């Protein structure tokens, strides 16, 4: 249960880090370490080089810019949890972050680390999918931006070259007072979720759903936006029957099947959680309206 020997590097700038990653063979980026350190200890990962990006300044911030939330990749999950800006502008993110591990792991764990590790059940990845967040990636040729949909290539596989680092994530605000609901099912609080669901909705003046986003985490190989369910919701009255129909569409996800849960069970959870997340989103809309 000790890491295999490696060469340690702690660059103080993004350029230095990218330069190191381009030169070194078999290198791993160490962010908050809440997944990588465990993998090193258990020798699931045996890199020859560890590039620790904790000493790079300016990668930790939460800002509002042009109607969006911009979060630095090295922002600790705890800072997101306690951010008034996040709570005010993106309440579902505030809710979801509390399901990420435990206080001790959120103190160290980073937003960028979680997105790059890309565990299918990661709440932050689900939130990025739900908002189709824009990710900024720095490499030797400068910075590029890509949507989360393009970033999440497959099971724990982000679209990053070996000499690239994620530097920021941008989440567009939903209109003030939008409905939101997040739910997950885990064996114990803070465990990896077997399945999770997040929903965002807005209603038009007639009370019909005019915008909807629904994500299922922990079921597919990456957190999945269920566009067929969103299509069902659009233009309808938000009723239990519509939510049930939309939730059924979540069964189209190609589900993981492993020791923690068979695919059929994950799909059952996806449907149930989707239905409840939508109902919760509607409820939050109504309780907001009453204020």
């Amino acid at each position: 249960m000790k890491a295999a020997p490696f060469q340690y590097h702690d660059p103080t700038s993004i350029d230095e880090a990218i330069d190191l990653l381009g030169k070194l063979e078999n290198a791993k980026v160490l962010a908050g370490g809440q997944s990588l350190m465990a993998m090193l200890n258990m020798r699931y990962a045996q890199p020859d080089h560890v590039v620790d990006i904790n000493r790079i300044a300016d990668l930790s911030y939460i800002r509002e810019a042009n109607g969006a939330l911009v979060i630095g990749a090295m922002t600790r999950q705890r800072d997101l949890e306690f951010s008034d800006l996040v709570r005010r502008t993106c309440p579902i993110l505030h809710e979801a972050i509390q399901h990420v591990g435990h206080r001790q792991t959120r103190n160290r764990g980073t937003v960028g680390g979680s997105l790059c590790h890309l565990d299918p059940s990661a709440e932050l990845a689900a939130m990025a999918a739900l908002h189709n967040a824009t990710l900024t990636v720095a490499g030797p040729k400068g910075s590029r931006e890509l949507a989360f949909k393009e970033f999440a290539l497959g099971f724990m596989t982000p679209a990053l070259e070996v000499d690239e680092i994620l530097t920021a994530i941008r989440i567009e605000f939903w209109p003030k007072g939008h409905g939101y609901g997040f739910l997950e099912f885990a064996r114990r609080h803070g465990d990896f979720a077997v399945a999770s669901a997040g929903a965002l909705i807005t209603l038009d003046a007639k009370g019909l759903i005019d915008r909807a986003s629904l994500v299922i985490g922990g079921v597919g190989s990456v957190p999945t936006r269920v566009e067929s369910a969103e299509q069902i919701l659009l233009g309808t009255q938000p009723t239990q029957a519509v939510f049930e129909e939309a939730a059924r569409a979540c069964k189209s996800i190609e589900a993981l099947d492993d020791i923690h849960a068979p695919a059929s069970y994950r799909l059952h959870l996806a449907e149930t959680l989707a239905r409840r997340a939508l109902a919760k989103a509607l409820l939050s809309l109504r309780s907001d309206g009453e204020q």
Partner: protein
Amino acid sequence: MDSRDIVVTVNGIRHEATVKTRVTLADFLRHQLELTGTHLGCEHGVCGACTVLVDGRTARSCLMLAVQAHGHEIRTVEGIAPNAKELHPLQTAFQKHHGLQCGFCTPGMLTTLIEFLHDNPDPTEAEVRIAISGNLCRCTGYQGIVDAALDAAKTMRNST
């Protein structure tokens, strides 16, 4: 093997040391500084026994490299009591409410609760249970620990 010189403050004492870069903070505290109060259960961030405070924030010391503690302030279970004769109110409450049996999880429980009660001096029972949800205890069934945390919170509120 790759090693580095670090300067780290542990329980108020400044230490200069040379560490192998692959060594975790937990192993550094236990083997090099001989502060064996920090316990290692799972060594992959699940059990919470190795929790310490890094600049006042809890962290699992098995998921941090010793070299990453360079320039930071660490507080372990050995640094909780105000002096050699007195216990911290949390420690007194753990004793009073049978918050421990074998004691393996205790250092992690105490450090976790110190941060928690600092941020939330008047918690509900449910909040205490969530706060310690990342710390496994196989003896007590948690009831004594929860009672101790609530009682210590009261004592600490009254003393300030």
